[in-house]
């Protein structure tokens, strides 16, 4: 009898795990991952426990679930007041090697430019005018390339630009980059 109950719980739980995994992996809108309310609705109130268990399974594959707080604009909330909402993503737990980074479609010079851009933005508290970024990149990678590079980072979500041309860190940077680690590594570099 006990054994039967345990089996039922296990089946029920694995079903929830599957649902959570599908929500996190398959992109439905413009952004990957799943919002907190989606998980609550589809997986249940105890979704955090489900994610915890899923995380244990994923860690064996060098993957992990990451929770990122994102700012919800006023028009998207019921009360018309901007709010914070969490989004969950699956990211690589460890890091990639140089060859692996090339294999997933990134050019080495683009990655170098991304490192420079993020370091400069962080030194300016996460915001800088577009001209400042382009100037920095132009010195290193050439004038024309610098414009293209900023556009690439905007398109891929690593950066965001407002109407005044001020660039800030994008949603992808928040979810993929360990900024503290980046700045520490940058400071450690000896020239």
């Amino acid at each position: 009898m006990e054994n039967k109950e345990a089996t039922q719980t296990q089946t029920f739980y694995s079903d929830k795990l599957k649902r959570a995994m599908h929500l996190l992996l398959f992109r439905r809108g413009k952004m990957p991952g799943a919002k907190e309310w989606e998980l609550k609705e589809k997986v249940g109130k105890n979704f955090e426990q489900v994610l915890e268990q899923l995380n244990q399974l994923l860690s064996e594959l060098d993957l992990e679930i990451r929770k990122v707080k994102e700012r919800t604009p006023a028009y998207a909330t019921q009360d018309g007041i901007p709010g914070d909402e969490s989004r969950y993503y699956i990211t690589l737990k460890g890091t990639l090697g140089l060859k692996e980074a090339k294999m997933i479609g990134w050019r080495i010079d683009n990655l170098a430019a991304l490192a420079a851009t993020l370091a400069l933005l962080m030194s300016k508290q996460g915001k800088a005018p577009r001209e400042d970024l382009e100037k920095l990149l132009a010195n290193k990678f050439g004038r024309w390339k610098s414009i293209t590079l900023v556009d690439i980072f905007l398109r891929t979500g690593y950066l965001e630009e407002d109407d005044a041309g001020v660039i800030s860190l994008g949603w992808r940077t928040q979810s993929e980059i360990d900024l503290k680690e980046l700045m520490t590594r940058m400071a450690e570099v000896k020239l």
Partner: protein
Amino acid sequence: MSKKAGKHSLAAGRRELKELVDTCDAIADRKFNPFFLDVKLGVETLRQFFPLWETFQDHCMDAHTLNRLSEVVRLQNTQLKFQSSALYADPEFIARKVERMSEKRLVEVLLHSWHPLAELEQLTEETVTDALNYWDALLPIAERWKKRQFIEGKPPSSTDAETLTGLGIQGEEFNKQIAQIYEELRTSCETSKFTNYWAFVRRSNYQETVRRAYFVSFLVTYGFAKLQTNDGNLSLVPVDHPTGKAASNSVSFPIPIPRSIEHGE
């Protein structure tokens, strides 16, 4: 007299407040360091001009300036907190490092802190619509190949003066035609200072239009005529005493010639 001085101060006050707001906005847009502005001096300026304000707009401006100054104070506070955190690095220092680091070293720094997202791509309504639109707009393969054949020409090769003369792009005949076009341009500009480029160049025959545009390009390059824009229209002005030499600071200005005459302008 005192009234006049008062008016002057009022105008100066409005100007100063505008400058103050502009500076605050530039700081908010991260163009300057928040400590670039002396907030105390800003508040003193507000206090100095406050008794002079006459209209409702003046008071609104005063309140707006105070609001912007408080934003700068907030940014100064954030800056101090940030400087005391582990993430702080001087922007100049970072810029210098980036300049001197190799690309490989920069990539290594990023790779140690990069945990890319894992996701699976699949068909969505949006991607299917994009694909269908692309497919609908795509020309049949035969058309595309035709276009390609049209574009493909002979590879560049060297030639001699005789061939060029034969083609009419060098020699006596060529000079005669250039002189003729130049005279034609001068005649068309007798009544007005300039003539419309397309009115001068276009003819009912496309080949003839291209030929005239070709000669006009020589006139412009060698200083026999000037190409100008008037209200967005291209116009030609003949030069009375041409040098006959290409200007050293000249720039290339390509003008596409559409096949349809109606679209010529």
